[in-house]
């Protein structure tokens, strides 16, 4: 407490130094927190992807035939794969399949006074179990709707308000899309474009997606759908991976016995849990994951290291001015550790104040410039296709984890900046310190 009081006294005494210190720290923390927030939004549970810690993804595969010396890259799976493999899985809570091409369509207003281009997804009923959508009214389409290819759809509340002028009591109303009428069966609270795996403004049964409904003639399992699995524990996750590996073995046997060739299904390390899939830079190579994470971590350290050098320079300069003070205290019996602790604590107060300001600055920056921020730092193919201004929720910005991360950055910055110059200055003997001219 004494040291904190001394820190505030020092701040009042040396205002210019304090101002520069706090500014440097605030800018550094703001920059790193903008990036950290972008990563957080991609990894942490946010509506409707609240089950991210239990969700695994699978969409990319290779199929290899030794006899034909051919490799086929697949960016999705076919209805045949769904029928023979994914719908038979036992070690899952739910399996969702989604068309792998995010597409748009025009929807006419009910009063025919305009039309709007909206994002659509084709999926199955389990999609609404994997992703916990809040239904404003109605419910998801059923498997019967899917099997019967009934033209029904779940829409977002924003779309409902655009088309019908309200998001309540619209269940049963009809939507006109490319000349076909669809019945609204449910309205959900719209997700953010930043939750790209679940975001759309209208959801259709996958059986209506003709362009994705194809089976590759050679390898059978290649098609237009990607999988999302919901598991209930790490054990079930491991069991699921085993089960899928077994299905890969069975696929090879089936292909050989049915005369389709000696195709081998290489799952490329999939399925991957959500946070791992976020760091995959090239979907056909999942092996370099930790390299990507290491690079991201190194980048964060670099963004803290450069400002830390600034602070080190300033602290070193200031320590030279305080040599006499330190000399006197040493002469009165203060130990080097105590003096070091005081310097570090004083700077921790400065970096904490700067960190708080930086955090506020980062929130302001993200909210005011979110279109630009997320187009720069939130880089994935699907997110690039969505040009709408991302809508942010409080859970994306105000999270205990982000506060902890911000404080951690401040502490790292403080240690990097203060420790070495303080230690170097305090090594000087008492007499030399007291004789040092300012």
């Amino acid at each position: 407490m004494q040291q904190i009081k001394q820190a505030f006294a020092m701040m009042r005494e040396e205002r210019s130094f304090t101002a520069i210190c706090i500014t440097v720290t605030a800018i550094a923390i703001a920059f790193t927190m903008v990036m950290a927030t972008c990563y957080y939004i991609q990894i942490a549970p946010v509506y409707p992807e609240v089950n991210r810690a239990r969700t695994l993804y699978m969409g990319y595969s290779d199929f290899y035939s030794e006899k034909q010396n051919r490799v086929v890259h697949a960016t999705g799976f076919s209805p045949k794969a769904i029928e023979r493999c994914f719908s038979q899985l036992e070690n899952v809570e739910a399996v969702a399949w989604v068309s792998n091409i995010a597409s748009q369509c025009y929807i006419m207003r009910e009063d025919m006074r305009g039309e709007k281009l909206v994002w659509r997804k084709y999926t199955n009923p389990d999609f609404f179990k994997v992703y916990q959508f809040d239904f404003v009214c109605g419910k998801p389409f059923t498997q019967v709707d899917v099997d019967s290819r009934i033209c029904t759809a779940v829409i977002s509340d924003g779309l409902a308000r655009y088309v019908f002028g309200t998001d309540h009591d619209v269940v049963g109303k009809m939507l006109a899309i490319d000349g076909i009428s669809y019945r609204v069966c449910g309205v959900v609270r719209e997700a953010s474009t930043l939750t790209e795996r679940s975001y759309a403004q209208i959801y259709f049964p996958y059986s209506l997606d003709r362009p994705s409904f194809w089976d590759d003639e050679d390898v059978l399992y290649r098609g237009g759908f990607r999988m999302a699995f919901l598991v209930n524990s790490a054990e079930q996750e491991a069991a699921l991976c085993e089960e899928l590996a077994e299905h890969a073995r069975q696929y090879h046997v089936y292909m050989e016995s049915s005369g389709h060739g000696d195709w081998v299904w290489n799952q490329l390390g999939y399925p991957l849990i959500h946070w791992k899939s976020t760091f995959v830079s090239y979907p056909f190579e999942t092996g370099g994951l930790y390299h990507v994470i290491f690079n991201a971590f190194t980048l964060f350290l670099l963004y803290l290291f450069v400002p830390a050098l600034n602070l080190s320079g300033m602290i070193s300069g200031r320590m030279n001015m305080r040599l006499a003070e330190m000399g006197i205290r040493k002469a009165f019996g203060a130990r080097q550790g105590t003096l070091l602790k005081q310097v570090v604590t004083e700077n921790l107060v400065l970096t904490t104040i700067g960190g708080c300001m930086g955090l506020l600055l980062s929130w302001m920056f993200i909210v005011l410039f979110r279109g630009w921020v997320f187009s720069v730092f939130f880089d994935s193919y699907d997110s690039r296709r969505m040009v709408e201004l991302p809508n942010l929720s409080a859970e994306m910005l105000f999270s205990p984890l982000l506060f902890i991360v911000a404080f951690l950055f401040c502490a790292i910055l403080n240690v990097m900046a203060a420790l070495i110059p303080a230690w170097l200055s305090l090594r000087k003997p008492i007499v030399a310190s007291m004789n040092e001219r300012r």
Partner: protein
Amino acid sequence: MIIKFMSEYIPFQMNPGLIWKGIWARRYQNIWLLAELVIVAYCSWSVLDPAIVFFHDKHFVPLGYDADRLCLVDLGTKDSEFPENYYASGQMWGDIVRVADKFRALEEVENVCIAEGRSYFNGEGVADYNVGVYGDTQDFQNVHGLNFTRGTHFFETFGIHPVYGGLSQEDLSKGRFGADAVVVTRSLAVSLFGTEDVVGKIMAVRLGDDTLSARVAGVVENVRPFSFERYSNVFFRVLPDDISGRTSDAKLVLRLKDGVEPSKFVSDYRPRIYTEFGSGPFVARSVNSYSFVIDECERLMGLSSSYHQLLVAAAFFLFNLCVGVISTFWLQTRGRAGEIGIMRAFGATKVRALLMLVSEAVMLATIGFVIGSFAYLQFTVDTGLSVGYNFTRTGHETDWLSVYHTHFLGVAAILYSIIVVVVCIGVLIPACHMVNVSPVDSLRNKD
């Protein structure tokens, strides 16, 4: 002799020896700034080198076609179910042609091209092929290929000029050379055959396990199918005349008349195209300028975001460098005020005092930059400098970015200038404060 030369001809305040003495005298304070300069120089290399290459490729290498006079119209259909035989009977193609004719009739429009299968520059229809000289099984290379539909004014609309072959733009667009012939660019001609005039020579195109032959019917000026690729080898192929095989996935490329601004054209016609430019089930959904199309393509490829990430990182490092310089020199204010007071008492002007401080900062920046660049040079000896995004490098590039030493020196000059400017800005703020203190006050307060 060097010192005598420097003493006689270089102003006192900018004497390197004296500047170095000043830096050495404050070495314990300057060491942190020097460390930061080295780190920032190194980091600036790694972020700004690819950014400079991308900027150069985008702004200083000609596209080869008249993008500033083009607009792109997106077609769509009102119904998803078509009458029987709609495709096979040619009705579909007829409707698309009628929509194109409506645009052609506009007074602002000079020509219209129907880009079937999205085969237009910076579009999804630009495909990649493996080609070589027919008969040579060794030397195949990756190139871009664009298909065009016969009679759709492809070359006139894009403004691609023929060079060899004796065929005009109109002849090339009409595909008067047959479906087994191709039109190549100059760079592809040189790449394959070693010369530009290759009309009549046979090119081999690998398609899966087959190798097809294609006669070169004409040579055109170089074009860049993608705006972010500096060099591209390209060939153009006419699609078969089978109307029943035509796809409904087509867009219209409009060539505007000279003097017509694409942005004005877009804003004038965007509200009207859905209702006024339709035929059968086809409607014109949207119209955009070609610069928008190019920007969209770069955005979807992630290049815009990568470029902006690099610039943001560079801005961050340089900002911190500026603040570091400000803070380091600001802390020296009290100590150096006496020194500057003495200088001014002996007749030095404020400008000379400023020059001394700026010279110190510039020397420090130079030392830091040299060390940082040397460290980066060691790294790039193995990995090489940034080459941009080039899928189809011709192998004959000779511009300054393609040669290692000119690339390194050129980027070094740009980076050095940026760092010196940043450092000068950073030092001027405390320096102006220092030199504005009167000599009497500074000498009175001197410890």
